[in-house]
């Protein structure tokens, strides 16, 4: 196994993609939420070789769990990982001073190494010419110039790696300990070597500085950021609708086909209402997730993400977070699942955990159908000011309630469960780069696979469990009871109903909340079923039914109950996908458990206060 090591922003991932192509595997190191990215590469003589892309780090003194893994792997201490037989040290040619310091520390470990002098094209653009032979002589190890995003120098690099791990190559039994040298001393030596190897340096104006003059401008910068975010949301909502509808239709067709070709029975019900519905619920999210990640990967690869964090840092600092939390939280407005997955870019573990815990409070797109039906049913469509409709105002208030709730929750969490020093904000601002489409596509592919495999299995499983709860036991053949009422879920609802009575929820609402655990928008169809006169076999997404549902709800609920129901959906963790992905990202049930607990308490209290207040006002 050969390890790819280097500073952040050295172009390590691009080099990894260039070396391995699509033959990549993303796993996890045992016991930590650090991704293990490995891939297969074939050497010039046809021998296969495993390459591991280690998290980027500035030194061997870890500042985050990612960096600790990098150190432990190259010292042969990481559980579940062999000591690498060689290292490829990736350094950025445009930032040699800084990257050589870490390279010097790595070389001192004594493993066979080759240096990939990456981004030599950008260095040339900046007016820097570096002599690789001179650099190699100064460092005492081979140096190969590369341009990973253009796949230049890759064959030379592969050849070198082949020599390092060949049969004749020296065998290393164990890594040497870290040489404890003062970082400043190493840095000065690195600076001297960089100076010696640089044959030409003229002050060409760097591109990045020109872009930053606009992107970080005190007025234009925030406007540009807002514009980009607007574009991102437009993309998520506008482009995802067609594929989501197509997937929905495909699932409905599949269900119809199975229904037509199978005898009625438990098995058919399991396949159509359990499995297909469950898998469908997972895949329907996929278009939104892919579009969102497309934007995030683009922002990340271009170097803009750090600028967005820079602009937002001050505002996030007020609630004890850092600028890094901004993009994941923003993504959560589309769906908390990709939002929580995007928290991986946050180095500070407590900052990251807090962000994960408050992400579900951002109003996701799945809540919109629920809001739409209830608002249409209870809030009169009148204007309260020039161009301001009451319905729109209520919708806006619900979004704001989520945001304010998240901010308050972050403040409280940072002082209690995720207590610790404020994460601070200290980041290198990378050069702007044109993202390579290949790298973006590969990133999307791996994200999609992770989502489908990890979250998908849990979501499909729990959907089947929910199906079972709603389907068993069957009422006796001669009984006139609604099968749902007779099922375990119906009985759970009976049991829970007294607990929800104080906040204005009757048993039917509680019953609708149970299947809504799979996905929030299901609440609409569940209510439709419950309140529908013909209790059996109604298609929930029939627009006529939605209208009827609004009328029917109007008859059954008071305005106070309706408002409490809306507020409940602002806070309640009504989404198994979110819980599943939180479990995956925090490596255990402890934090998702905590999240579910605190959000339910919050939802109960907020819905209760709404109900009591509006009842007192006589609504």
């Amino acid at each position, binding site marked *: 196994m050969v390890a790819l090591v280097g500073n952040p922003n050295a172009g390590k991932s691009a080099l990894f993609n260039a070396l391995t192509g699509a033959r990549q595997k993303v796993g996890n190191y045992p016991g930590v939420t650090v991704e293990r990215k490995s891939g297969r590469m074939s050497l010039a003589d046809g021998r296969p070789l495993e390459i591991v892309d280690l998290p980027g780090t*500035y*030194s061997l*003194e870890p*500042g985050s769990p990612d960096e600790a893994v990098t150190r432990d792997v190259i010292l042969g201490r990481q559980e579940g990982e062999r000591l690498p037989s060689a290292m490829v040290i990736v350094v950025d040619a*445009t*930032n040699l*001073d*800084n990257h050589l*310091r*870490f390279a010097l520390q790595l070389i001192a470990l004594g493993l066979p190494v080759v240096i990939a002098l990456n981004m030599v094209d950008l260095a040339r653009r900046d007016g820097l010419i570096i002599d690789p032979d001179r650099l190699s002589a100064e460092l005492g190890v081979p140096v190969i110039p590369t341009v990973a995003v253009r796949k230049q120098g890759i064959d030379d690099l592969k050849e070198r790696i082949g020599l390092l791990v060949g049969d004749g190559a020296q065998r290393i039994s164990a890594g040497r300990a870290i040489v404890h040298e003062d*970082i*400043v001393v190493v*840095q*000065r030596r690195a600076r001297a070597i960089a100076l010696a190897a640089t044959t030409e340096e003229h002050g060409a104006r760097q591109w*990045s*500085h020109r872009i*930053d003059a606009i992107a*970080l401008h*005190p*007025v234009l*910068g*925030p406007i540009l950021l807002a514009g980009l975010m607007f574009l991102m949301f437009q993309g998520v909502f506008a482009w995802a609708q067609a594929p989501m509808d197509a997937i929905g239709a495909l699932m409905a067709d599949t269900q119809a086909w199975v229904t037509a070709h199978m005898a009625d029975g438990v098995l058919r019900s399991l396949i159509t209402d359990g499995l297909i519905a469950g898998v469908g619920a997972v895949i329907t999210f996929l278009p939104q997730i892919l579009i969102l990640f497309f934007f995030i990967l683009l922002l990340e690869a271009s170097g803009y993400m*750090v600028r967005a*964090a*820079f*602009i937002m*840092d*001050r*505002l996030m*600092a007020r609630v004890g977070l850092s*600028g890094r939390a901004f993009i994941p939280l923003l993504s959560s407005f589309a769906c908390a699942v990709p939002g929580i997955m995007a928290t991986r870019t946050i180095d500070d573990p407590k900052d990251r955990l807090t962000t994960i815990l408050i992400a579900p409070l951002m109003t996701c797109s799945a809540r919109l159908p629920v809001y739409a039906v209830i608002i249409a049913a209870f809030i009169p469509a009148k204007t309260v000011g020039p161009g301001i409709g009451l319905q729109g105002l209520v919708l806006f208030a619900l979004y704001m309630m989520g945001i304010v709730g998240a901010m308050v929750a972050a403040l409280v969490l940072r002082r209690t469960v995720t207590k610790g*020093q404020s994460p*601070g*904000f*200290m*980041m*290198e*601002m990378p050069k702007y780069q044109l993202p390579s489409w290949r790298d973006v596509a590969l990133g999307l592919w791996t994200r999609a696979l992770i989502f489908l495999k990890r979250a998908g299995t849990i979501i499909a499983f729990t959907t089947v469990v929910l199906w079972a709860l709603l389907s068993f036991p069957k009422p006796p053949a001669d009984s006139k009871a609604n099968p749902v009422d007779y099922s375990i879920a119906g009985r759970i609802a009976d049991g829970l109903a007294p607990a929800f009575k104080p906040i204005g929820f009757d048993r039917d609402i509680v019953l609708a909340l149970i299947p809504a655990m799979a996905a929030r928008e299901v609440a609409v169809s569940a209510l439709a079923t419950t309140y529908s006169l013909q209790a059996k076999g109604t298609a929930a997404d029939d627009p006529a039914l939605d209208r009827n549902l609004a009328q029917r709800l109007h008859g059954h609920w008071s305005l106070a109950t309706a408002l409490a129901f809306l507020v409940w959906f602002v806070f309640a963790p009504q989404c198994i996908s979110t819980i599943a992905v939180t479990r995956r990202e925090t490596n255990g049930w402890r934090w998702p458990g905590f999240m579910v607990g605190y959000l339910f308490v919050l939802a109960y209290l907020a819905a209760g206060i709404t109900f009591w207040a509006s009842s007192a006002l006589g609504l």
Partner: protein
Amino acid sequence: MIRLRLDSLPMRRPARIVAIDWEALRPAEARRLRELGFDEHVTIELVHQGPFGRDPIAARVGRMTIAIRRAVAAAITIEPLTAQGAAHVHTRHAAIAAE
């Protein structure tokens, strides 16, 4: 020579770091600052500041641009390099003193 804390250095005035109060920083922050190339005698220039409350700030050190919060910058003592920079700072301080 005038000495200032980095958080009071105006934008785009090159300066040299004369001292860093490592003790005033958290160990992790101090280490990261060293790793990012902050060191005595290094030339530094502030190039950007955040739109809200002018925090954080972006400093150019060597060939890198690094974002730090003003609170961290307060631990770094610098001296402006150009006469122009020194004069600018001087008048600003004089103005503050006069108020």
